[in-house]
Structures are given as structure tokens and as C-alpha cells.
């Protein structure tokens, strides 16, 4: 396996160079991400792995230009778009342009689907609103589309459930709805920030399978953010390991799993329970 078009002449879908993020601290700006570089190409998945506070979520928010107030990013984040085949810089992008790209060309799925869905609106409205805003579809068109997308992400009886509110769905179903919302405009880039962390293992497997299927169907480039190497091994071809905002290791999934170069990666790998592990002597590790 070669390194996914990050080398050579072709412009990758997303190219991030020397990304640095600082947040306001007690004694001036505090740098929390120290010079990250990576690229994502069409139909490929980059897994960003790290523990809490490693800067993985800040990185994804920076790509979407959704950093919290006060936080600042420097370096370069370039997205290849129809208008700019050579990639356009997002960090210096205007508000209107960024708004036009968000939800249309790049979309995001968040960790906790209940708190990330607006409790006051029907899921159909929430799925359709991005399409209406970006493509100017009518209410009726958008609703038909919402039913269609709900069906694709595996919601049973979508023509009925489209009028339900988020609280009427289970956790796994809510995450499917989040995915439907993100995919409604068929974006080029999808960022999934711990999309399965709040779900139980069976549902987690279903969501991962769904994401892979949809990615094959639409050719979406994906950044999959997680603390769980077991999960990322199922979806990503390329992996970036972060620790304290520094890139620790970066390579293909094969390289990292078969021959980790850094102690930290080895520790992370050892933390993953394996089915062929010997049974612990005293009633489990919990």
C-alpha cells in the first residue's frame, strides 16, 4: 500500500500543513497543537488517535473553522474544491465562504448524538435544513430527500420517523441521524469525531460498517477521530497518533499495527483488549 496520494503531483482533497492551535491561557496564548501535517484523499480514511487532551478534537474543529471563541489556528488547511482544484486556504477564508463550504463540501459527525441534535425540531427538518440552505431545495424536495437519506442510514420506516423528534430515537439511531445530516449534501470530506464512543459495542460495529459503506458509495474522504485503536484499525488506511498536541507516529495502518516505532504507540496498542488474550487471573480487569 502506498501513502495515499500524499506524495506526487495530484492535489489531495485536504492538506494540512504545520497546523498550530492556541487557546487563551492565564499567561497569554497556550499552544495545544504543535505543528501537525497530514493529508486526506478521496475515498480514503485517516485515523487520528490519541488520549483525551491530545488535541485531536481541536484539530478537527480547526479544519471545519469551528474553533471556540478565543482559540486561534495558524499554518495551512487547504481543501480542494470545484472552484479551486489546487486547494483553497480555509484558515484565512471569509465567513461567508466558510459557511458555504461547511455542511456542503465538508461535514462533521460529533460524539454525543443526543446533545448534538436540536431537541426542538423534527429530525426531518434538521436533516433537510443543510440541503435547503446550500442547494436551495424546496420544503417538499428537502423532505423527500430526508426520507431517502434516513432510509440509507438504516432507519426503519423512514417516511414515518422523519417527523419524529430526537428524543424518540435510541442512541444508535440518533447517531445514524447525525450521519444522515452530515451526508445529505454528499460532502467531499467527512470528519467523524468519536462517533461511536457513546454507543455500546454492537451498535458501534453497526455504525462503523455504515460509515464504511457510505464512504464506498459516495467516495467521501474521511477523518476518523478516536482514542480507540481497535476501532480505528477497522476503518482507517492511514493513522496519525497524537500525544499532547504533538504527532507521535504517522503511517499506514499496517505499519503502525505490525511495527510501531514509538513506545507510546506500543502502549496504546497494548491497551487494546484482544480476543486471544489470556484470561486475567482474578475476575477481569474492570
Amino acid at each position: 500500500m502506498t501513502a495515499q496520494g500524499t506524495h506526487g503531483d495530484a492535489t489531495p482533497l485536504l492538506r494540512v500543513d504545520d497546523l498550530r492551535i492556541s487557546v487563551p491561557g492565564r499567561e497569554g496564548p497556550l499552544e495545544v497543537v504543535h505543528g501537525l501535517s497530514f493529508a486526506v484523499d478521496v475515498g480514503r480514511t485517516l485515523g487520528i488517535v490519541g488520549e483525551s487532551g491530545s488535541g485531536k478534537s481541536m484539530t478537527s474543529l480547526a479544519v471545519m473553522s469551528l474553533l471556540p471563541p478565543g482559540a486561534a489556528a495558524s499554518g495551512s488547511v487547504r481543501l480542494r474544491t470545484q472552484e479551486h482544484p489546487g486547494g483553497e486556504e480555509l484558515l484565512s477564508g471569509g465567513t461567508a465562504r466558510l459557511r458555504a463550504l461547511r455542511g456542503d463540501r465538508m461535514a462533521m459527525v460529533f460524539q454525543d448524538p443526543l446533545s448534538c441534535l436540536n431537541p426542538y425540531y423534527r429530525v426531518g427538518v434538521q436533516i433537510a435544513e443543510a440541503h435547503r440552505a446550500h442547494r436551495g431545495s424546496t420544503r417538499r424536495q428537502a423532505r423527500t430527500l430526508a426520507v431517502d437519506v434516513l432510509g440509507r442510514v438504516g432507519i426503519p420506516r423512514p417516511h414515518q420517523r422523519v417527523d419524529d423528534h430526537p428524543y424518540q430515537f435510541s442512541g444508535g439511531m440518533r447517531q445514524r441521524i447525525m450521519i444522515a445530516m452530515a451526508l445529505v449534501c454528499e460532502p467531499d470530506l467527512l470528519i467523524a469525531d468519536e462517533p461511536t464512543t457513546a454507543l455500546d459495542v454492537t451498535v458501534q460495529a453497526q455504525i462503523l460498517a455504515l460509515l464504511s459503506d457510505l464512504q464506498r458509495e459516495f467516495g467521501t474522504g474521511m477523518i476518523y477521530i478516536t482514542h480507540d485503536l481497535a476501532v480505528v484499525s477497522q476503518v482507517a488506511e492511514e493513522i496519525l497518533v497524537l500525544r499532547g498536541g504533538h504527532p507521535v507516529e504517522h503511517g499506514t495502518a499496517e505499519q503502525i499495527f505490525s511495527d510501531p516505532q514509538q513506545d507510546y504507540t506500543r502502549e496504546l496498542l497494548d491497551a487494546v483488549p484482544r480476543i486471544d488474550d489470556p484470561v486475567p487471573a482474578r475476575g477481569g480487569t474492570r
Partner: protein
Amino acid sequence: MTLYLLRRSGAGVLVLFGITLLTFVVFFALSPDPAVTICGKTCTPERIETIRGVLGLDQPFLVQYGDFLRGLFVGRSFGVGENAVQCAAPCLGFSFQTNQPVLQMIAARIPQTVTVAVGAAVLWLLVGVSGGLLGAIKRGTVWDRAAMLTALGGISLPNYFLALLLQYVLVVRLQVLPFPDSSIGLTEDPGGWFGSYLMPWAVLAFGYASLYLRLTRDTVLDTLSENYVRTGRAKGLPRGLLLRRYALRPSMVPVVTLFGMDFAGLLAGALITETVFGINGVGKLAADSITTNDQPVIMAVTLLAALLVVVGNIAVDVFYTLLDPRVRVSQ
């Protein structure tokens, strides 16, 4: 939902009964003999006795209260024989001062009070909610601080003082507004009507608007830190839509709750405003009847105020289910 409404209405009726009983007790125990007041200065003990007989004031407390309730539901008559005066249900009695039927007196004044109340409510909702939203978005800027300071003033300034101040400055000194005249109808002279009610609206609305501004600002600020707002931004929604669906709509629940209560309790505010501006509404009627100890009128106004509060509370609960879909399950 129907069952719920029936239960709430039943409880409301009980509350209203309680209030009539309480008001009755207060008058029976505390107030000076109305017969003496009615009789006037040149009065004989015989005449006082006659009046008491006609009004039923010589009866024991429970009989009097029973007569009042009977009048409310089936009508009653005052006095006996050919001099008896009929009073059809719902009978609220006759004013001790003017001898007019109380129901008519109130009905004649309701339009003015409704005009004052609704106009003020529209004004304070508009100013309070939009100002609060603006303050939340422009948090920490000069605009936010100016709005908050004005709101503090609005909360601290008693409205009778503000009423007099406005009247002195706008009517007496600058003469930009006419003195309010509540007899001008909307259809005859829209400009004069508007000019007449402008000050009462502003005075009544100012305090409430301040309260709603602060409430809206704080609630919107809370809402903006919700995770789903970030989802909305990640969708690249236009700013107006984002604010409406993701900030304003979720913030409306506490505002509507407060509004239901405030609007129902507005009669108390109308009392001062109407008196200061000489508007012939229910509030002024209440103030006048209290000064002259006109028991049937006070009784009726109290009942009306209580009815508004009860209905307002039920309306808020119904509105909840429209505003927050999650409430609908637990009915």
C-alpha cells in the same frame, strides 16, 4: 390532553371559590358597615336598617356568601315584594356608589384595559426578546452594556414615578404628546388613539421589558453553549436561521412561562398606570372602588384578576407542549 385540561380547569375553579370565600371573609370581618356609607350624611337608623335588609347585610355570613354564589350562577334579587330588583346570572351585584350593575361597569371598561395590556405586552416582548438576543450575540460590547444598564434602570424605577416623569417631560414641557384621553376610539382618530396610549404602553412595558431583556440574554447565552448549536454551525446554516432555530427557539420556554404569569397579573400594573394617566379601565375602577370601599366592585375585580391568573397558568402549560416536544410524552 383533554383529561389534563379538565383536571387543571377543575383545580382552577376550586382556587376561584377559595378566593371568593377569602375576599368575603375579609369584607365581613374588617370593612366598615357599607349600609352607613350608602346612606350618606343625612341618615336615620331606620333607613340604615332598610338598606341592610335590601342588601341582605343583616343575614349571617354563610347566608350572605350563599346568596353571592347563587347570584353568580343562577341570578338573584335584592329586596322583597314590588321593590325587589332582579339581577340575572352572572350577578356580581350593584355598586354601592353608583347603583349600577357591577357586571356592566366592568364590561364597559374592559376594552381600555385590554388595549393598555396588549399594547404593553407586545412592546415589552419585542423590546425585551430582541434586545436580549442582541445582548447575547454582542456580549461584552458597548451595546450589551448599555442595554443591561438601561434594564437595571427599568427594574429599579417604580412605574408610577416613570409615568409622572414622562408626563411632565413629554406632555407638559416638550408638548410632543397629548394628554392621554381614553375616550378616543381607534376607528375615529387612529393618530390620537395611538398618541393617547403610547405613554401608558411605554410606562407599563418598561419594567417588564427590562426583566425580559435580562432573562432572554442569559437564556440565549446558556443555549449558545449547547452542543447542538455547534452542529448547526457545522451545517453552514445562514446566520438568521441559525439564531432562530438554534438560539432563540430553545430559549423561549422560560420567556413564555414568565409571560403567562405576567400577562395574567397585569391588572395590578394597569391599576397604577391607568390611575396616573386617567384611563377609564378596570385598573382605575379597582383603585376607585378601593378608595370608596365599594365592596361589590372590589369583589368583582378581584375575581377577574384571579380568573386571569388561573387561565394564564393553564395557557402556559398548554403552550409548553407546543414549545418543547419533550413535554408531550409525559402528559
